[in-house]
């Protein structure tokens, strides 16, 4: 019996047999995991993939800290089961910067704008912003506020985050920083 098989057997014994194999892509890397069916996508991202940049703030789908991109769409990874990620393409905060560490324009803009304070919510905001600007590259201030209203921040009062998005728009349009 291989190690994987024996650990699978142990897990099945412990959980009544609800084990699934899931394959998906995370930040461009093909990933396969064997997990209890009840484990969430956020559990797997943080624990199995060891990508701890995705945060859990409420675990009931309100705060948005756990937001990741699933096939480009912003999704609450705390509300998705890992099994639902089968065949999907996942992007997390760790996947935003370039391979040489060059910041994504949204990251650069948030830094320039003093966007965050404790920054626990920042992975969710950054992923939501990337998705927003992908769909609407030139949003109005109202559209930004509306789109980001699914993410909670307790530190900033949001103004610096909205400023950051507006700066990102300028950078991505090739304007001045």
């Amino acid at each position: 019996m291989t190690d994987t098989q024996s650990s699978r057997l142990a897990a099945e014994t412990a959980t009544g047999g609800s084990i699934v194999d899931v394959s998906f892509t995370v930040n461009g890397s093909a990933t396969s995991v064997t997990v209890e069916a009840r484990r969430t996508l956020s559990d797997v991202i943080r624990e199995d993939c060891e990508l701890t940049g995705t945060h859990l703030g409420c675990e009931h789908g309100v705060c948005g800290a756990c937001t990741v991109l699933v096939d480009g769409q912003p999704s609450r990874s705390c509300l998705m089961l890992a099994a639902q990620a089968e065949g999907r393409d996942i992007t997390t905060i760790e996947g935003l910067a370039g391979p040489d560490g060059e910041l994504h324009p949204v990251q650069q803009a948030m830094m320039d704008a003093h966007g965050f304070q404790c920054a626990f919510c920042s992975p969710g905001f950054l992923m939501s912003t990337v998705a927003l600007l992908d769909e609407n590259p030139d949003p109005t201030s109202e559209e930004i506020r509306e789109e980001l209203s699914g993410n909670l921040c307790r530190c900033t009062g949001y103004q610096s985050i909205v400023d950051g998005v507006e700066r990102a728009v300028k950078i991505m349009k090739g304007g001045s920083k």
Partner: protein
Amino acid sequence: MSANTSGLVGQSVKRVEDDRLLVGNGRYVADVNPPGVLHAVFLRSPLAHATITSIDATAARRAPGVVAIFTGSDMEAITHPFPPFAMQPDLYTPLYYCLSSTTVRMVGDPVALVLAESRHLAEDALELIEVDYEPLDTVASIAEGLSPTKPQLWEKANGNVLYDHVHTFAPGNESVDAVFAGADRVITERLSCPRQSNQPMETRGSVVEVDPDTGHMTIHNATQSSHMLRWIGAALTGKQSTREAAKGIIANKERRKAFLAGAKSFLKENAEGLKAQDNDGMKSQLKADKSFLKHANLIGVGLLGKDDYPDVVAQDIGGGFGAKGSIAREDVALIAAAGELGRSVKWIEDRVENLMDGGQAREEDLTLSIAVDDDGTFRGLKVDLVIDQGAYPGFPVGAPLASAIMKVMFPGSYNWDAFEMRSRIVATNKGKYVAYRGPWANETWARERMVDIVARALKMSPAEIRLKNLIGDDQMPTAMITGPKIDETMSTKKTLERALELLDIDQFERDRDTALAENHYLGLGIASYHEAAPGPPGYWECVNPGTETLLNEEAQATVETDGSVVVYTSQMPHGQSHETTYGQIVADELGVAIEDVKLVFGDTRRTPFSILGTGGSRGGPIGGGAMKYASRAVREQLVDAASKLLEADVADIEIVNGNVHVAGVPARGVTFAELIAQTAGDGFEATRSYRGKGDGGWSVATHACIVDVDLDTGKVTFPRYLVVEDCGPIINPAIVDGQVRGGVAQGIGAVLYERATYDDDANLQSATYMDYLIPTSMEIPEIEVHHMETLSPGGENDFRGVGEGGMIGAPAAITNAIEDALSPFGARITSQYLPPTKILELAGVISPD
């Protein structure tokens, strides 16, 4: 000596923290996973008040993956109860253990701890623990807390009123009552503030890492004070008999010495302050409950006789707002469990737990009477305050300290002939009351609300009555009626004058008329206040004798042999951007780039001792002061060494971009590393302790806002919100603006959205974010922040704290604006919480209930 600064202080330097935080490389406590770690979950009471008649964990212990289960009685055998802290005359602080064994006093009261191989398995096992509860009648409100017919939460208390004390300040010839009798009018109103919650986006959490070879513990924790956690964690766990402790005292000399070393310089610096501790507070405590003496003895001897002492390592923290300044009962249980099992344990609180037991605040009833002459001159102020402490007192600070600060700050920036305040604290079956950003803030809310009520009664404008009574520069220096000194840094009147200039009142009046056509009512509200940030010398002695010692901060600055600058603080950043602001201070002092400064924090193995860590608006003034003087001392050492090496007068040595040279000849300069190498030194080091030096200490602001009340929906929006703040010289304007705006956002939440709601049987009704509403980007408006930077006469390190003020001013300005908007309906606002239904009731659109 020439200035040689790089001039970063005062600039919106980009945040050093963002290099790691914005790319997902932060290290929050949930990210810590020692090998073989066990996952912890707590079984919590579903009832608000009950006797535990039996608890049976047999089946749960056999559940898959379960390693251990501790019940309340298991924990009583191996831990000490939380002792009273900062005792005050007429205050009783109940003693309680980390888990409850015989009585539960709130929904969410922890009764058992399960440790299993995964969190899922631990949660599975929770359901198998059988607890029989015998329900008791509940105490669900302040009124019930004051009622003598309700059951008592704490056996040794006298009813549920744990504190009842009258403070009187009448410095003139007249008594408070005589001042009131002599005034033209006395206006009285009862105000109330419902329960709120701090709600940082990261919940609480702890990972107690146990070295499998030595048993040594390293506690990773989301704490605002790592040293406090280390001491309390060590003190309350590993309970042993006096005899065992005595053996340990003989055996562990070296480890004990190392443990105490950190606190030694603190004790030396604060010897006098510690002597000033109020013995009457201790007497009140012992009168009610002598058990503290027995526990204190065991705790003290046990601490000295421990085999080993834990370290605390706190790194990135996802906000706290005061809630993480408390030592969690859960933390004590986890440390004790890890010690018993010899294994690492991890607990990450979930949001439901956090809403139940992660800290609640601000629930207070306040009856105010203002004695005033017909011309609007304030004569006297009387306050009757009752705080709902909930079931368990926050440790170390909670309702008693909030009450003590309110006693000093209630008179605000106004002139009074007399002031009297009765303070009561009641125990109820609710989540524990903790410090929340400006824990005393309801003095500003209630006073500024009341000032508007008085102005209306006298047919004066809110601005006019404030300007008439605010203490002006022409009276300075002077003192508050409650004692603290006032100098020009208490610039409240100037911030109000500036705010009035910035508001376009005529335009507002025109907009108000236009809005009426669409059933929208506009209102303008202002609030002005000063706050101790952290207060001038002597301030904390007015609050509670002996507490001045808590302020102290120590910093260490070093230049290592490779030339790198590493500085150490006892502050515990959790969103305030210390790495950036301290980097600015140190870079300026040492003449290096901010990138070259590394700040070490949160690690008790490396950082200097402090009791409070971060809290009380001390980061800039006290922690920043210690940092400045420590790095200045290192600069002197560098300059001294360079003057010898370069054979020049110390006055001629400059440091620019890390190049130490004789003024005018940078080409012949040396780097720090070269200087150390060429002088055969082993680096430079200086440590400085600081707690303010007569630098004013007041942070000041006026908030002014225009609200738009939609009487179709009851929704309140903000066409304009402005803050004129004065925190003295600003280290980083972008960071200051962020602190102010974040505080205002929490104030908006408090008034319009957030409430920790309990039903009549003290069942929590707001246990998720579907019910406890945190405002989003759609609810928080743009907030204008205008700065004044009043310097303190003779002040040298003149920074003042700015983290709390936004929250202090906002509820008053907003509720005043809403009352103004609803003035056509004769609305009187007496509650701080105004959701849409309440707005519509006040306007008579719907009727109550």
